[in-house]
Structures are given as structure tokens and as C-alpha cells.
């Protein structure tokens, strides 16, 4: 009994500083971490994301078909809506690193400018704005919501040629 009491006292003496330190510093730190980790209404949205836009030239004359570097689009490009095109060429691939409400602008080799803005998140999907321009002409200005890693296509036709902009965005 005495041995047990002495052991308890020595254990208490040895653990008391550590427990006190943990209480003094640990509790505020834990509170801070919980406060930061708890999503509030204003912090619920995504802060950044990444998008990759491929510019694909679609030719009505040609026999090249769909090259290997466009396999990830082959399922869409074989759809009846693109049946008129006989050849596809990947001419540009640009990455957009987006931050919330900041416009990112890249110019493609085709002469088009694409602006992308991350507007937020809705149901774990990305809410974006894009402006597709050629020179000073604004071809498309749209707000859209797209799921992560989903593809959205914007074919821009001019005469008998077409540039297809394939948007793929994801959370970072």
C-alpha cells in the first residue's frame, strides 16, 4: 500500500509539469486548430483550382482521324456532332492555376484568348467564369459549374475550320 502510494506520488510529480504544459499550451492550440478547421460560411468555398485547356484544330479535309495524344477526347470526338471533321490536331495545351476571384488570361496559338476565373464551389463542383476572345471580340462570356475532371467543349467555327477548346478543371 505504501509502495503504491509512493509510486503514485512520484508519478504525479513527474507528470505534473508535462500535464500542466499540455493544458496551458495545448488547449489554446487545439481551440485554434478547431476554429480553423471548422468551415464557416465564408470559408466554405474552394480557394484555388487548376484547369487545363486543350486547343484542338478540327479539319473537315484530311484523313488523320484522332491522334494518340487526343485519346482522352476520342469518345467525344467520335460523336455525330463532330462527324464532319476528318482530322483533329492538338495545337496547344495551357494550364491555368486559379485562385478565387482572380482572372487568369492565356493566349493560344490560334490567336484566341481565354480568361478563367474561379468563382467558388457548389456541391463540390467548381463554379467558373470564362471569356473566350479573339482580339477585341468577345466570343463567349459564361458562368458555369462543372464537376472536377469533367470535360466541357467549346468549338469555335470560322469558315470550314474549327478550333475546339476542351476545358478540364479539378480541385488542387
Amino acid at each position: 500500500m505504501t509502495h503504491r502510494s509512493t509510486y503514485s506520488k512520484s508519478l504525479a510529480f513527474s507528470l505534473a509539469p508535462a500535464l500542466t504544459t499540455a493544458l496551458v499550451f495545448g488547449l489554446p492550440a487545439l481551440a485554434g486548430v478547431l476554429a480553423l478547421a471548422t468551415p464557416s460560411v465564408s470559408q466554405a468555398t474552394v480557394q484555388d483550382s487548376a484547369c487545363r485547356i486543350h486547343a484542338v484544330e478540327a479539319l473537315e479535309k484530311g484523313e488523320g482521324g484522332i491522334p494518340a495524344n487526343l485519346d482522352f477526347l476520342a469518345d467525344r470526338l467520335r460523336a455525330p456532332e463532330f462527324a464532319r471533321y476528318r482530322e483533329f490536331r492538338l495545337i496547344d495545351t495551357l494550364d491555368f492555376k486559379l485562385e478565387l476571384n482572380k482572372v487568369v488570361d492565356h493566349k493560344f496559338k490560334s490567336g484566341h484568348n481565354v480568361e478563367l476565373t474561379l468563382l467558388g464551389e457548389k456541391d463540390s463542383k467548381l463554379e467558373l467564369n470564362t471569356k473566350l476572345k479573339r482580339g477585341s471580340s468577345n466570343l463567349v462570356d459564361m458562368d458555369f459549374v462543372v464537376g472536377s475532371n469533367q470535360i466541357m467543349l467549346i468549338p469555335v467555327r470560322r469558315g470550314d475550320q474549327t478550333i475546339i477548346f476542351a476545358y478540364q478543371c479539378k480541385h488542387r
Partner: protein
Amino acid sequence: MNNQSIVTEFDEQLSAYFDGELGDGSLDAGDAESLGATLRALVNAETPGDLDSDEELAAKLADLAFMRTMIVGALEHQAERVPEARFEQVWDGFEQALERESRLQEAAEAPPSVWQRLSEWIRPVRLPLAVVGAAGALVLVFARSAGAPNDVGAHDPAVAANSQPSNTQDEPASDAEPTAQARTNPAPAPAPEPVPRVAVAPEPPSPEIAPEMYPQPEPGEAEIRRIEFGGRTGTISQVEGTRGTTTVIWVTEDDGPVDSERSL
């Protein structure tokens, strides 16, 4: 007792009498008692008839009195000439000397510093330590000079073999034109012993940003919240593929001239 000693003793007795040191019982025998009695008689005028001896004693006493007056007056005069500030100055100097001595005493009693103790500890072996240090420095200098590559070795083709094409059995022949010296002189026989080569570290690859990986696109429709077409026409449609539906925004540009880099 001769006359000279008697005269000297008489003078001493007279000086003692003058100084007030001659008491009634101070002389204890013979002529001294008679001299003392004579002096007392002279002073006390007990025997006024002995004029010759009295006049001589009176003259000596007058001389002693004159000498006392002269000496005391001179000393008092000197004492009066010393100003009071002189005493203050003397005392200040004395106090400063005392303070200096006390400071020296405190410094002597203070514990020595670490460096003083270290120097005291090293003092007996400072000469051997200096010798050992000098020898170590010499050895280090010789070792460094012996290990450093010389300029001749830097131009050794064997050393630079990793960075220049060479014609060896282990490596393919170089396309470089042989030098004039190589054309005129036959190729030397291979060295019997392999020359040690200094490996040249390859340059680190330039940091390239790895392209961000995107997985295979997933099927799904995009929800268009707002859209404005600026071209000639615009259409929203859905493309049905084998793996799912994809949103397609068809845009038709105007046929007018544009300031683009690539003509459609």
C-alpha cells in the same frame, strides 16, 4: 678627574639646569654636587659675594637663553610660513595614496578571470604548445599543397576524358578532326598502367516543373449559369458519347478580318 672633563661636566650640568632638568637629588657625588650647589646658589642668589663665578655662569646662561630664543623663533617662523592650504594638499595626497593602496589591495584579492586562469594554466606548457601548433600548421600546409591538383594535371587528356571525346577501345571513335600534331606523330603506345581518372560530376539536371497530371476525363454535364455570345451564333448542346454526356458550346465567329496570330 682632569680640568677638561670637569669643564664639560659643568657645561652639561648648566644645560640641564637651564632646561629645568636639574633636580635636588640628581647629583650624587663629588664635584658634581658642588657644581649643582653652586648653580643653585647662583640662581637663588644664596652666595652673592662670589662675583667672578656668577658672572661667568650668568653669561653662559644668557648664551643658552639666546640660543633657545633663536632656535624657537626660527622654528616658529618656519611654521608660520607654511600656509593652511599646504596642509590640505598634504592631506589630499595622503588620502589618495591610501585609496590607491586600497585599490591595489582589492585588485590583488579579486579572483582572476577565466582568461587569466587559462593563461596561468597554459603558462608552464606554452612553449611545447607553440611548438606543436607550429608543427601542425606546417604539416597542414604541406598536406594541402601535396593534395591540390596542379595545372598540368588539369590539362591531362586522361583527366578530361569524361568531358571530351576520345578514341579509346572502350569508347566509339570521335568525329573530331585529328590535330596536326596527331597527324605527324604516330599514336603513342598505350600506357602500361592505367592512369587514374578524376570523375567529372555531371551537371545537375535543370529543374523542370513537372506537368500537372490530369486524370482521364469523367463524363458529366456542365451547368451553364449565364452565357453571352459575342460571335455570329452560339448554341449550347450535349454530346452523347459512349461513356457519358459532355456539354458543348458551339460558337461561330464572324468572317471579318481578325488580328490573330493564326488564321483559321
